[in-house]
């Protein structure tokens, strides 16, 4: 096949894989799926499936939990498979070829996370003040597409044409502290989100609970779920759970009048009459 067409098909495969996040987080980005498709494109699907299984087991530790994003497995596994089948190399060699490209994708992804995607997030804030729902729709769809999906596709396609050594040489030009610095910045960014959330929620009466949650996490190493459970108990106690329980049934005007009679008994009720 014409290498340009192959490159385009591999780029589309990468975009489909990342498209899992548009399609219900449906695991399309896992090597089991991407390597199979890459194998099909390279004309040897069986080899692709086997390689996908090998890579899947190798990557078994790499999954996103909470705020962490997966290391760039999409480009690594697609190009690894393509190089291995195209050049008749072993999986291990192919993966080594895929690693510089995966690191490049990671750098570009971090750049996009810091400089491109926030543009869409903040434009959405503006659309919200105008009650512009079409604008909000666009920010969600275009934000994900231009900041992450398209860059991954482009890098995978171009890298396939240029070859791994070229990418490695290119990576060597970028100073290490820029790459590391971008990684550090992604660790700092959630602070901004929390600051915005705190601005919305915090006031003089409840600030102490923020400190409490923080202290539980750092001193007692309670995970967030645990803090939520402690918080729920505390909330129930502070709001008077017993009183809440008693009044839980929806009561109409009439029913509540009857209830008063039953509870208070005759004497009180008659007292009112005098």
């Amino acid at each position, binding site marked *: 096949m014409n290498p340009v067409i192959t490159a385009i098909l591999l780029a589309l495969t990468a975009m489909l894989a990342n498209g899992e996040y548009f399609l*219900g987080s449906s695991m399309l980005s896992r090597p089991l799926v991407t390597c199979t498709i890459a194998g099909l494109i390279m004309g040897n699907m069986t080899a692709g*499936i086997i390689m996908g299984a090998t890579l899947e087991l190798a990557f078994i530790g790499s999954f996103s939990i909470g705020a962490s994003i997966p290391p760039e497995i999409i480009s690594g596994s697609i190009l690894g498979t393509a190089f291995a089948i195209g050049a008749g190399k072993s999986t291990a060699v192919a993966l080594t070829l895929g690693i510089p490209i995966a690191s490049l994708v990671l750098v570009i992804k971090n750049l996009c996370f810091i400089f491109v*995607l926030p543009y869409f997030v903040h434009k959405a804030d503006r659309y919200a003040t105008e009650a512009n729902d079409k604008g909000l729709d666009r920010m969600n769809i275009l934000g994900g597409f231009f900041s992450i999906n398209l860059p991954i596709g482009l890098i995978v396609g171009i890298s396939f044409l240029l070859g791994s050594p070229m990418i490695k040489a290119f990576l060597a030009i970028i100073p290490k502290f820029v790459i590391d610095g971008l990684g*550090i910045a992604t660790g700092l960014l*959630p602070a901004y989100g929390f600051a*915005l959330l*705190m601005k919305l929620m915090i006031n003089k009466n409840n600030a102490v609970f923020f400190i409490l949650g923080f202290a539980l996490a750092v001193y007692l190493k309670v995970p967030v779920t645990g803090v939520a459970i402690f918080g729920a108990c*505390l909330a129930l106690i*502070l709001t008077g759970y017993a009183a*809440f329980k008693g009044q839980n049934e929806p009561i109409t005007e009439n029913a509540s009048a009857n209830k008063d009679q039953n509870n208070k008994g005759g004497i009180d009720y008659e007292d009112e009459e005098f």
Partner: protein
Amino acid sequence: MKMKSSKLLTKKDLRKTFWRSFTMEWAWNYERQMNLGYTYSMIPALKKIYKGNKEKLTDAYKRHLEFFNVTPWLSTFPLGISIAMEEQNALHPDFDDKSINNIKVALMGPLSGLGDSFFWGTLRVIATGIGTSLALQGNILGPLLFLLIFNIPALLARYYGLYIGYNIGASFIEKVQKTGLMDRLSYGASVLGLGVVGAMVATMVTVKMPLKIGSGAEATSITKIFDGIVPGILPLLFTFFIYWLNSKGVKAQWILLLIAAIGIFGAWSGILG
């Protein structure tokens, strides 16, 4: 699944939310994580709930553009609750709309804990196990079964989660509203929500200062010294610093640029790592 009867919404409206929730992680960002996906999923319901009330609709959009994160396949459960609460907010003028986000934030932690261990820790391991054992023999059923075993339960959770969330939200909030305990619920939710935010600041904001002071065996990193005062004080101070910048009215893009610059300068000088 049956949906609790509603004055403002039909089952069809909720179905739109179901489909839109598929994009929950599409525009996932470091700053507010799933906020765009969540708002996108809320839009059809919000438009109907606040028809002809632009001011309240704007408030609702802004509300849901705040920070949110949860295991994606369970995201419809808090969506259902949020929709039910927004509906009550439209019907009752005395409803405290702050409680909507407080409840949302309070749900993040426990739902993610449950969801991560079930979907990532259990379901994915089973699907991968079966998928890889077939795929190692070159069998196409490997990747296919992998996708099916994972996605069928995930889809069911996503579908039923929405209605369960809506029904629970609607009946519970209605009761609270009728008994006049709304301000207590709101206060309780803020206690819970802020506790969770405090814990998240401690665990999700990463500031490390590996630079060592002293020499030889006595050398300790700056992070260690600060952690000796209060563990995790660096992320906390950094969050307060950003909070302060934000309250001084510094524009978002400057804050983001500053964060990128701090990261790069920190790596260059070796102060941050």
